[in-house]
């Protein structure tokens, strides 16, 4: 698995001192119907944007907690990496964006009947957020509300 030893000493020291959030209470939505009839969406924190979409603001203190809508019909090779972190190797997800935004895999799951539908849109966050207040209070609830309005049953979340 990933390990803190992958990071630079400076990053390790920061992460050691950082006050990580704890979800309490833990919400829980059981799956109430077969996956074969579920609508599924992706949420990736790989910081992907579409060509022409506003990139995530690298200069924002604490990180840019906004999100971008990625349509289901996207050709993954067109996605642009706008993730600010230098703490991981970006080359693999640049070579194959499905590694962090597995839209082709989701289509295959739909085509095989394992899931019912691929939602018409998905969301991309830039996961390098040290200040998470706005994410928790505003942007994550906004994204969740939009997917709930779409009738999404299941969301798969992929960090990098």
């Amino acid at each position: 698995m990933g390990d803190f030893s992958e990071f630079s000493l400076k990053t390790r020291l920061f992460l050691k001192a950082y006050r990580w959030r704890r979800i309490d209470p833990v919400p829980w939505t059981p799956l109430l119907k077969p996956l074969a009839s579920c609508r599924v969406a992706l949420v990736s924190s790989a910081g992907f944007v579409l060509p022409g979409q506003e990139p995530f603001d690298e200069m924002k203190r604490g990180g840019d907690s906004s999100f971008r809508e990625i349509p289901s019909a996207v050709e993954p090779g067109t996605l642009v990496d706008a993730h600010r972190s230098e703490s991981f190797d970006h080359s693999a997800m640049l070579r194959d964006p499905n590694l962090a935004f597995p839209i082709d895999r989701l289509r295959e799951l739909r085509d095989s009947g394992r899931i019912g539908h691929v939602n018409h849109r998905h969301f991309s966050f830039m996961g390098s957020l040290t200040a998470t207040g706005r994410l928790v209070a505003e942007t994550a609830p906004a994204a969740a509300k939009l997917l709930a309005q779409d009738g999404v049953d299941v969301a798969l979340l992929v960090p990098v």
Partner: protein
Amino acid sequence: MCNQTVCLVAAELERQGIATVAIQLLREIALHARPPRALVVPFRHGHPLGEPDRPEGQRAVLEAALRMLEDRALRPPALLDYSA
């Protein structure tokens, strides 16, 4: 930080009635953050679904995530270690 970010978004999705699985690259962070369902994968940062251009490996991780959703015995916070 990416791991924490998807945990926090997962919690909001579940509050809106959407079942989630959050893939996680750092077990320690998943244990602390407590997303509703965490699938801890044995891959490096930048490789959440394994290796690039290996669709079968990527499919296997997603299938493990889907099985977590179907497992009625799981209770929150649920954490599973993925093994290929």
